[in-house]
């Protein structure tokens, strides 16, 4: 048993152990003091050895009987009392032990210690992955295929439970812990020479920033890849000297632009950065012309800017419902491309469906926010020859592209 858990067990067991010692002491003293008689009727007291022997087998309900001589009524009276006393003592201790092993804190302490031991003693180079979200899961599988070892931290115990079920080649030590705390990073072996990099891939960019700060201050030269979405956080990460910052929206927009301007380069990039085991297929070039971008916020503005630079005529439609005034634009026969980029998956699906019904099918980009709705996005009808693109790469609320004529970006750089 790990050290501090052992201390916790000892600490919690103080009361029942003292109770047991006291009960044994009282019982033994009583047996020694109360006079008895031997087989010939002569007075004979129990000595300490026999009293201890008797109480030991009586308290544990083994019950060898009245030894060494049959007891007198006075002794029997005392023994009756002792039996109940010792049973209470043992039950108390037993209940305490059971409660201890049900204790969440205790179980977590045990798990944390097991994790720390296995993480810090990994005999091979490993990456420390913070955040086993959808991005983390994909990265984890990819790195595992490439033969890297990993150590995973995530705040959500359900995600950790999912990792345990993931079909990975190597054993991956994982812990439910807040990666913002530097001690959790150290417990994961960040300061050991075998740690070759930290991947801050949680869904919360402030957490990623905190991880970046800890890594840069505690191990300045360690490889560090962080995920960030807003320009402010990106700027702060740069202050900490993080070179590899992944902005999923920017990355996606960059790929889209590259695919428009130079499809060949895009395909080459896909080939070079793809997940192990994916084959290169023919990509459909995103058309120029009128693009309708649905959505608001960072994603829509980044994608619109990229499309513009790629040579498209962009119309940004806000968060207006599909059925209202702006809807005709979405289904306008002139639109050559539609981006369903709102933060709402159901609406994105609705926009995609609406786009399909409009005359010549436009090139459609659909953003999938939640991994759990994956099957709906996969079920979107596709144009013959179009393919469902690869998994949404290294981003969690990632854009999924195109049921109609798909390209899907991938930003797994540096791994």
């Amino acid at each position, binding site marked *: 048993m790990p050290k*501090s858990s052992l201390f916790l067990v000892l600490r919690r067991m103080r009361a029942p152990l003292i109770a047991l*010692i006291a009960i044994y*002491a009282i019982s033994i003293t009583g047996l020694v003091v109360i006079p008895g008689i031997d087989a010939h009727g002569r007075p004979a007291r129990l000595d300490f050895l026999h009293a201890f022997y008797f109480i030991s087998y009586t308290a544990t309900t083994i019950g060898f009987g009245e030894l060494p001589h049959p007891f007198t009524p006075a002794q029997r009276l005392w023994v009756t009392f002792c039996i109940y006393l010792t049973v209470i003592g043992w039950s108390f201790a037993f209940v305490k032990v059971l409660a201890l092993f049900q204790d969440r804190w205790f179980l977590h302490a045990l798990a944390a210690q097991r994790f720390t031991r296995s993480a810090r003693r990994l005999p091979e180079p490993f990456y420390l992955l913070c955040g086993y979200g959808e991005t983390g899961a994909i990265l984890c599988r990819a790195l595992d295929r490439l033969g890297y070892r990993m150590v995973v931290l995530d705040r959500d115990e359900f995600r950790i439970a999912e990792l345990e079920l993931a079909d990975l080649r190597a054993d991956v030590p994982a812990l439910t812990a807040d990666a913002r705390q530097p001690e959790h990073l150290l417990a994961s072996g960040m300061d050991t020479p075998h740690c070759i990099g930290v991947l801050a891939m949680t869904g919360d960019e402030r957490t990623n920033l905190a991880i970046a700060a800890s890594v840069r201050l505690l191990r300045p030269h360690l490889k560090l890849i962080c995920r960030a979405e807003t320009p402010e956080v990106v700027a702060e990460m740069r202050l900490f000297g993080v070179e590899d910052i992944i902005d999923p929206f920017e990355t996606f927009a960059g790929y889209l632009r590259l695919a428009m301007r130079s499809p060949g380069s895009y395909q080459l990039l896909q080939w070079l950065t793809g997940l192990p085991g994916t084959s290169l297929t023919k990509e459909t070039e995103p058309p120029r012309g009128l693009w309708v971008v649905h959505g608001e916020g960072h994603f829509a503005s980044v994608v619109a800017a990229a499309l513009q630079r790629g040579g498209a005529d962009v119309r940004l439609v806000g968060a207006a419902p599909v059925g209202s005034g702006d809807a005709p634009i979405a289904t306008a026969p002139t639109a050559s491309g539609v981006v369903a980029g709102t933060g709402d998956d159901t609406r994105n699906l609705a926009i995609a469906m609406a786009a399909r019904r409009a005359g010549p099918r436009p090139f459609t980009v659909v953003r999938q926010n939640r991994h759990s709705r994956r099957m709906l996005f996969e079920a979107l009808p596709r144009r013959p020859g179009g393919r469902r693109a690869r998994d949404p790469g290294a981003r969690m609320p990632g854009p999924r592209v195109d049921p109609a004529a798909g390209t899907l970006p991938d930003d797994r750089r540096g791994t």
Partner: protein
Amino acid sequence: MNLEKVVFGFFIVLAATLNFGFFIGDIDEPGHHDVYMLFATIVVNLIATVLKFGDRTQIGAIHLATSLVADLQLGAAALIWGIAIHVLGTGFTPETTVTVVSMSAGALLANIVSVILLIAETLMLRR
């Protein structure tokens, strides 16, 4: 005043005093050493040991170590006594008494160390 500290100090000092009470007297004179006293010493020492469980500090570790030493020595003393009387049947002879009392003297030393630690701890708190 903290009740837990009172109980802690009480058992540590009581363990030392009972141990001393058993030890005092001629080392080879069976009449000077009472079996009830030894029993009480063992019980109080065990309780003192359990009270010291779960303290991860350096001084806590030494505390626990001294108590474990005392338990070991007193347990050995009781065992020798029991074997001499019941297994070998030699009775409580002066030779046995010398061994038992020597064992309890070792335990007494450990208990004194424990008391000194207690005092040192208290003095450190004062500052």
